[in-house]
């Protein structure tokens, strides 16, 4: 359980980091919090030639609001997200979801950008950012590009970030008075989710669903945006009947793997239970009711 040898670089600016990425290409890997990556190294599932440690790049740190957009630096610790007042006020779904990420001891070190770039389909932050319709900022030696999170995840642990690129920021558009909910079930607290659901929902003046985004985790190779359910719910009242229909539509494309922790059927069942809970909670919050 010891990593293979590697060259260690610790750049202090993004420019230096992307230069190193250009130099090492596929054989260089960025390390941020390392809470998923170091176990992979320790088990020698990955043996990169060079580790580019971005922890000294201060400009990647922190949370700020600019022109109606919440900007989260990739190196922001998950623990900081959990405790941030700005997050609690502007994007409370993140405050609700972060306590589910691993344990306090891993959140103290694990980063927001790391979780998104690692793209585990049962991880909490990718789900939330997809529900929030975020934008991902990526930088390389050629400059900066922005990509919608809707196009970001490709498959298990694979994203649009190319080997010579670095994820630098996550941008979340701010909107007032929206309902939100994050629901997750795992066998033990801090374990990988068997299923998880993130929901953002707003209502119009007569209490009908205005906009809704619903994302399921742990049921496919990438976080699953439940588009059919979202289209169905738009403009409708939330009743037992519409919820049940939305729940069925939401899991239509769910195709979870089976492993020793849970069968496929059980995961789909849990996804339905959690979708129902999340929709009701988000709807009640959108109406301004206590949940």
């Amino acid at each position, binding site marked *: *359980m*010891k*990593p*293979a*040898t*590697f*060259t*260690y*670089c*610790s*750049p*202090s600016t993004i420019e*230096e980091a992307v230069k190193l990425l250009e130099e090492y290409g596929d054989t260089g890997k960025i390390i941020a919090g*390392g*809470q998923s990556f*170091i*176990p992979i*190294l*320790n*088990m020698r599932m990955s043996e990169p*030639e060079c*580790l580019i*440690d971005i*922890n000294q790049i201060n400009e990647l740190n922190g949370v700020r609001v600019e022109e109606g957009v919440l900007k989260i630096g990739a190196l922001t610790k998950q*623990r900081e997200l959990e405790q941030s007042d700005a997050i609690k006020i502007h994007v409370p779904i993140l405050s609700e979801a972060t*306590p589910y990420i*691993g*344990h*306090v*001891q*891993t959140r*103290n*070190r694990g980063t927001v950008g790391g979780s998104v770039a690692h793209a585990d389909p049962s991880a909490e932050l990718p789900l939330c950012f997809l529900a929030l319709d975020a934008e991902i900022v990526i930088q390389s030696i050629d400059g900066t590009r922005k990509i919608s999170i809707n196009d970001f995840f490709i498959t298990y642990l694979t994203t649009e970030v190319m080997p010579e690129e670095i994820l630098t920021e996550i941008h979340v558009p701010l909107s007032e008075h929206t309902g939100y909910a994050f629901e997750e079930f795992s066998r*033990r*607290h*801090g374990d990988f989710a068997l299923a998880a659901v993130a929901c953002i929902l707003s209502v119009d003046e007569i209490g009908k669903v205005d906009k809704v985004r619903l994302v399921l985790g742990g049921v496919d190779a990438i976080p699953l945006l439940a588009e059919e359910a979202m289209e169905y719910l738009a403009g409708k009242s939330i009743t037992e009947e519409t919820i049940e229909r939305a729940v069925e539509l939401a899991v239509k494309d769910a195709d979870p793997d089976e492993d020793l922790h849970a069968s496929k059927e059980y995961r789909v069942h849990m996804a339905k239970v959690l979708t129902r809970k999340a929709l009701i909670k988000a709807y009640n919050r959108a109406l301004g009711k206590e949940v």
Partner: protein
Amino acid sequence: MSNLSIEQKMNVSLSINGREVEAEAEPRKLLSDFIREDLGLTGTHVGCEHGVCGSCTVLYNGAAVRSCLMFAVQANGSDIQTIEGLAKNGEQHVLQQSFTECHGLQCGFCTPGILMSSLEMLNSGEEPTKQEIKEMLSGHLCRCTGYTGIIAAIERACGIKKCKEGDN
């Protein structure tokens, strides 16, 4: 910026339990192994070596982290606290007294890690709820005692600390 070639050792200087130390480490050396093998502080235990069991927990700049999920070179310039720094002048720390008092340990393998996470909690100055203690403990595996005694010990220690501060 520092670049190192494979197997070339790097200088690591850090403060451990208030003492400044300097040593050399290969980049791939885990902080847990560095603490045990190079600094000779074997109170930090190594269990699973992939971040699951929590026995290697230390305080890194005041925050409880798994030392098997960090490289020693990443700790350069930092302030590390380990279990060896708890007792002062031969007198047990309030956490250690409480774990003894409340039967918070049996074989003791997981205890150093749990004490370091508890120390972070204690240092925050807020009295935690039982639920918060349980959530913090979810990051640690104990296979002997069950967690009842451990929870009681942490509650006691946080209570005592509060009383003491109230007295001042």
